[in-house]
């Protein structure tokens, strides 16, 4: 295991866990932009370019730091005419993955 003798990992930030109460936000240095050359939306991030699918984009566009995960789930359930519980699982998993990759922050 990692031996951080003087500064235990606990002294730093802990892994953020996404809940329905979280208010996700894209940090300033993670930019969602339309690429006219490829006619697609790209996420530009440190050393990475990602091409999220339609549902991913619908989630990311709502990551404004004000909207809760609960509200995002409700909005997508209406938009995709789906079961809220099913959509909740997908949204929570998606946002946890993006949070673990430090592409989404929680407030």
């Amino acid at each position, binding site marked *: 295991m990692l*031996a*951080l003798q003087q*500064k235990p990992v606990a002294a730093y930030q802990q892994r953020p866990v996404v809940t329905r109460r979280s208010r996700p936000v894209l940090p*300033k240095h993670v930019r969602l932009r339309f690429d006219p050359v490829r006619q697609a939306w790209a996420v530009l*991030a*440190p*050393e990475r370019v990602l091409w999220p699918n339609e549902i991913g984009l619908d989630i990311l566009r709502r990551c404004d730091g004000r909207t809760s995960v609960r509200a995002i789930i409700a909005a997508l359930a209406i938009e995709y005419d789906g079961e809220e519980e099913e959509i909740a699982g997908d949204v929570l998993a998606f946002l946890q993955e993006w949070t673990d990759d*430090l592409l989404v922050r929680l407030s």
Partner: protein
Amino acid sequence: MSDRILPPIAMLAELTHRCPLQCPYCSNPLELMKANREMDTAAWLDLFGQAADLGVLQVHLSGGEPTLRRDLEQIVAKLASRGMYSNLITAGIGIAEGRIAALAEAGLDHVQLSMQGARSETAELISNYKGALDRKMETARQVRAAGLPLTVNAPIHRHNIGEVEEFIELALALGAERLEIANVQYSGWALLNRSALMPSRAAIEREIETVEAARESLRGVLNIDFVPPDYFATYPKPCMGGWARDAFAVAPDGSVLPCHAAQTIPSLSFDRFGEHSLADIWADSSALNAFRGTDWMQEPCRGCERREIDWGGCRCQAMAIAGDPAATDPVCVRSPLHERVVATLEELQFAAARETADSASFSYRRIGGARN
């Protein structure tokens, strides 16, 4: 296959070869250019505009030390105006007070700071620069104070492979979001210094264990990118994700390269921006087309099911070890020359065992050529 040329996504701009550090594994060519061969501001700005038109989304501003260019703020502003993502790759030394804040103001997106050692004495030994680590820590603080995200890049070799845990602590303490534990790639200066840099197999195994454990315990806190050591690998790295497939590099004089090391392949000739447009070079440059796609491949690559995963590996490594840039990267276990890599590694393990941290064993990177 190779019939359709895709637009490039990423560009590495080597704005200058000038650098205050003399790291013996520098990825620049052995023949370094002096300042008088660098493109001027207008040419770089024109190039970045054409890159945006062509589809480039991300630009890595590198060198040498890119902050030695006085026009860096103008360059960053140009990238921002075209919506391109700008990444400053810096040694973090000799940057004037307020410059990082000015670059942030101009629209810089991200900073990658190189660290030669997590301990002062290692940083000095490798960079051949007194007080390097303190200066770098100060730059990191300025980066964070300017609200910019920070990646710490640690090139790993025999003299600092024991400091991986300390690099992780340092990255956390500096508020970095990313840490690159990048085992040195043996081309150019690193190839020249290979016997002084190659780590032992046991050290590599400890390094991998440390990184895996840290990745797990620091999930969501620190992203650790691991660049595995070529010579110990089973399959080669897909260098640049395929030759001239979606990325390119530009040398200080405007030469457009498929990767930063491609000038080590003597049979290639490179087109210079200014003599041709970037779009023409991307489509028609003989160097970019030399190993594009899979048509150029020999066996065992040609019939290999991994040919569009590994893309034959690294052409520069094929040149360096096999003497043929179209050969399968000899790092690959399927290469007929793989035994050569294994034998070299065995020899170098003896060198690693006789370890002395002696700076005289390096050829430090200097403009004007390699000397001991």
